[in-house]
């Protein structure tokens, strides 16, 4: 480690690139305010004389932040959240939290550092925050609610995870050999000790990016999820190191651009108390080629990957959604007051279902919503080809994207016969022509459809796998002028067939199987109006009618109507 640091500083002395920051304001105030109100009514298909048919809930909050530019090379940010839940009186429902706090700056104009809270991503196989299920299919009116969840949990479009710890990076330019080298490193605490049997758990990552020339580049990434020795009485300490390396090539041929990438990685999950638990060694390989013609608006993206069943990378496989959670709205239903299962409406409003900590075991997923890539591109036990075709041309009102995936397991579950997976997806967007500066009326239309199939053919006496789920989403937005928008949307999720769920022990080993049969759907109609005060602030009133149908168990068949009032302001 010492030699590594000496190397960094020696290299930094030879050459360095860093933009000199201009002198900004000394203190900047920023923040956001939000008011959210739900009015729900529940109508089951079976007699239910106990569950309250109507519920009201909501909250008002303000995130107040202050950014201090201590000097040219140091910045301090602190933000607090004041929240008052609907129904709280005289301070009983009020909470104060520190939402984020960090210090960042430059050391000797060479090394950039960041201490405290930060967002960090590396690659889809090392540290990557995959989108939650169904979010890409949200209609425009419902995207506002997904946005609230994503804002609260620091889920960003760049797929970074919110971490608390330290990060640093430095870049070098070279006159011979390679053009540049970029080094990045971070460490965060993903679980704190209980001072008894649970040790501190840390996550560290290192990235080295080599730019050979304009065509060729390569990188090496390393992450490790590890328990810190001595922080508890527990001597069985987990280690999950992951190493990946990739080579990339890109070039321009006339009007088209070609980009190729090959990546391979290894993971090793073990405990440093010998013999405590089984080791898991896994690897992956990924190839990707993108051909694009920018002038024509066309691009084709072809990927092939193989991820071993034993490949484990907590940074890439942790899910946003915790499907083991319990909904807070209509938590128990029916005359027997049984726990209500999660549905797609819960996913876009239940903040408590969302996870911000990296998890070392594979989290539960719902095959109704995604049975093929529940852990993103790093989903273990998958191999297949993914083809994406995109068309989006400037000044053309239409944009289209098509996706086809054909894959299979790398290792069977309960049998040598692997499941096969097939996915077809299409998205069509339309935006009528209009002048951005004028207040003329225009419409945007979006249609999305995804069809997933999972199959495994075995002798008839054994449980069959023939699972299909479809997601259809359509939305129409009428922009009356710059401020008023009418939102119309409809989303349909259908799931039908038989699957075999695996039952796992605490170490993630499959110990049993459970046949799973479903035949149902979830339909959601959305009508609403949004008024935009500015690009950063809006007031929205939305009405949703949700219907869950279950052809097999009528007790879980119900309707749910929801009024939402949402006010968001950023400053």
């Amino acid at each position, binding site marked *: 480690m010492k030699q590594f640091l000496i190397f960094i500083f020696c290299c930094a002395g030879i050459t360095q690139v860093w933009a000199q920051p201009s002198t900004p304001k000394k203190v900047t105030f920023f923040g956001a305010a939000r008011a959210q109100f739900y009015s729900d009514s529940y109508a089951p298909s079976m007699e239910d004389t106990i569950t309250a048919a109507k519920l009201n809930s909501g909250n008002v909050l303000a995130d107040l932040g202050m950014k201090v530019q201590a000097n040219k090379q140091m910045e301090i940010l602190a933000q607090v959240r004041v929240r008052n839940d609907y129904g709280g009186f005289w301070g009983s429902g009020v909470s104060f939290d520190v939402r984020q706090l960090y210090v960042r700056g430059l050391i000797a104009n060479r090394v950039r550092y960041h201490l405290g809270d930060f967002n960090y991503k590396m690659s889809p196989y090392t540290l990557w925050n995959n989108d939650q299920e169904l979010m890409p299919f949200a209609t425009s009116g419902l995207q506002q609610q997904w946005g609230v969840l994503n804002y609260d949990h620091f889920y960003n479009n760049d797929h970074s995870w919110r971490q608390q710890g330290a990060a640093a990076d430095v870049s070098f330019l070279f006159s011979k050999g390679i053009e540049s080298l970029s080094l990045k490193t971070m460490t965060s605490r993903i679980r704190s000790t209980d001072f008894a049997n649970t040790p501190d758990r840390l996550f560290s990552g290192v990235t080295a990016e080599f730019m050979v020339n304009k065509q060729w580049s*390569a990188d090496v990434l390393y992450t490790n999820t590890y328990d810190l020795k001595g922080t508890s009485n527990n001597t069985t300490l987990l280690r999950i190191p992951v190493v990946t390396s990739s080579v990339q090539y890109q070039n321009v041929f006339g009007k088209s651009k070609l980009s190729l990438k090959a990546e391979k990685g290894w993971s090793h999950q073990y405990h440093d108390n010998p013999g405590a638990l089984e080791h898991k060694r896994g690897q992956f390989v*990924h190839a990707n080629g993108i051909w694009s013609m920018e002038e024509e608006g066309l691009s084709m993206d072809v990927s092939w990957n193989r991820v071993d069943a034993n490949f484990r990378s907590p940074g890439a496989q942790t899910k946003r959604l915790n499907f083991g959670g319990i909904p807070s709205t209509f938590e128990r239903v029916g005359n027997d007051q049984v726990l209500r299962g999660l549905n797609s409406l819960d996913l876009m409003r239940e903040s408590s279902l969302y996870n911000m900590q990296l998890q070392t075991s594979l989290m539960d997923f719902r095959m109704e919503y995604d049975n093929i890539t529940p852990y993103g591109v790093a989903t273990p036990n998958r191999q297949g080809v993914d083809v994406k075709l995109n068309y989006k041309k400037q000044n053309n009102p239409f944009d289209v994207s098509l996706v086809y995936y054909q894959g299979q397991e790398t290792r069977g579950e309960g049998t040598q016969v692997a499941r096969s997976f097939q996915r077809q997806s299409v998205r069509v967007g339309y935006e009528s022509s209009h002048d951005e500066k004028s207040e003329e009326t225009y419409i945007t239309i979006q249609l999305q459809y995804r069809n997933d199939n999972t199959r495994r053919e075995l002798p008839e006496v054994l449980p069959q796998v023939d699972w299909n789920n479809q997601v259809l989403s359509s939305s129409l937005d009428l922009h009356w002028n710059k401020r008023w928008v009418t939102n119309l949307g409809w989303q349909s999720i259908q799931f039908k067939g038989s699957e075999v769920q695996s039952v796992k022990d605490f170490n993630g080993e499959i110990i049993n199987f459970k046949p799973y049969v479903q035949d149902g759907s979830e339909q959601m109609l959305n009508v609403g109006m949004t008024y935009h005060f500015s690009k950063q602030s809006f007031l929205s009133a939305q009405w949703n009618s949700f219907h869950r149908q279950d052809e097999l168990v009528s007790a879980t068949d119900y309707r749910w109507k929801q009024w939402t009032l949402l006010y968001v302001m950023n400053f």
Partner: protein
Amino acid sequence: MKKLWILLLCLPFWNACKVDPDFDGPDLNDLYGPFALTEGLNSSRDSVDFASGESVLFTAGFSKRVDWTIGIKGLTSGAHKEQKEFGSLVAFDWKGETTFFPMFRSEWCAVELTVENQPDTLRDTVYIVAPKVNNGFLLSDFEMGLNPSWQSFIQSGQNMNFGLLNSGDIPQGQRAYSMGGTVTWDWLIGMIDIPASAYDLSHYPLSSNANNVYFNMLMKKPAEYDNGVLLLRFMEDDNEDGSFTAGSEDMYAIEIKGGPDGWRLVSLKYNDIKSLVNGVESAPDGNAIHEPNKLFQVSMLFLANPASGYSETAIDYVIFTEGSPLAP
């Protein structure tokens, strides 16, 4: 240089695109497949002489992996051997050992093969010409009575019951040794000293490797009495002067109490036996090295809390084995 990069680009895909021959989790066929007998219960011989090293192989086959149990019952002794395994093939090689006492004798045995969650039972019989012989140094199986060279002390309490058992529940042969009584003034009810000299030896004929030597005996805890404690003492002649001198030579001891009702096998690795003072582990008085080759005397003290009333135990087939514990 360019070729090198292209090679690096292609290298990761070497040997990819295949499905592992193994699979995760239990076999679905075991869980959900139909059950059928592919091979009936067969035994490799009708009669077996375990004493001469023979064994009998039981085989059977199923269409899927199941939990199967072979039970072998001695029709005269009532001895019972039980073997449970999980698999689609039965290949159990029986060498005459027992799971539930008593031990097998020369007798006819009934063999039953059962499969969990299946109603049918497969049956066979086998005749034991001569039972299994256990290798080791046998202190006594009490078939010839109490060794006259053993020294015993029995308190003059009430209902004292020290002597041979020759009827009822005997785990090996026809006889065992009982110890019982009520002593209201002392923990000690009675004791037996078994010196090496009882076998015309200066020391027990055991190897010097304490990790290789096992003390074994069959012991009974009556269902009615839980208050008995059997204290075993192992006295070494560290200086090899032909005697044990308390306070200057090693004495290792262990207390055996509680446990399941009925007969059970007690097997102790010699190296695991500690030095005790009033039941508490302490440093040995001698060279503190477990030396079974210098074992001078074994003592068995039967104890009980004086306030707890009558107490009783019984022992049989006391034997030292080497290499492994007794497999009766």
